């Protein structure tokens, strides 16, 4: 199974507005009983759109800054 890096969702900050579900370009996010979750991890492209639009700052996409290694 692929170990996908996914956006982190802080359910304590989330107010369940559903914007992330509506706006995810890959339709990877769904609303569950506890709040939104990445229902289809393989479809998530880590585009960070959910991070950008969340009005509560509850979704976070983080990046390391690294040099490319010679492939």
């Amino acid at each position: 199974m692929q170990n996908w890096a996914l956006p982190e969702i802080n359910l304590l900050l989330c107010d369940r507005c559903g914007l992330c579900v509506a706006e995810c370009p890959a339709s990877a996010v769904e609303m569950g009983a506890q709040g939104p979750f990445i229902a289809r991890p393989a479809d998530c492209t880590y585009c960070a759109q959910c991070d950008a639009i969340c009005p509560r700052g509850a979704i976070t996409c983080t990046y390391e800054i690294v040099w490319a290694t010679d492939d």
Partner: protein
Amino acid sequence: MSMDTRQALRCISLFAGLSDEVLDRLAHVAVRRLYPPGETIIVEGEPCQAVYFIARGHVRVYRLSPGGRQQVLARMGPGQAFNTVPPFQPQPLNHATVEALTPVTLYAIPGDDFRRLVSECPELALAILRDFAHRLDHLTNLVEDLSLHTVRGRLARFLLEHAEAGQVTRRWTQDEIAAELGTVRDVLGRTLRAFADAGLLRLERQRIVLLDRRALEAEAQR
């Protein structure tokens, strides 16, 4: 006052060269405070209660625009001080908001006590002046960066500086990078994509992979 407080103050680089007598006087008025990550330590525009010396951990110093846009002024760590300027002004107000990035241990000295000690202890006054000089230098460079360089240039320099060490010390959100550069998230996202389209970097899951040092260095001059 405790010997522990004096010893802790001695470890703060700003105070390293001070005599035991001055350290004792500082320790007498210093109060140790602990903050968890994410806690706001002081708020911009509120009355200045104290000056702060970082014994452990890291903080972020920033200002907010009325629209909520952040400009990070500095990141500080052990040995550094913040809020040392307001006690010397007629109406002492905090100049910026300061937030704990990690668990933080501080020593707080009330503003009135700090001003009195600086006026009575020349060696402390000199140490504070050296810190002010360093801070003025930093802010002058920041003004130059914000006024004379484009977002492309600032982003290129930020990426070069933070990938330079060769080891990953932290992860950044796009909001955090935008706040460091004095821009907004949308502009940052567009600039990152423009760099990616030009072959300067590659955006991956959780990684900004830098590809072309020469081109990034050229961008950093813009």
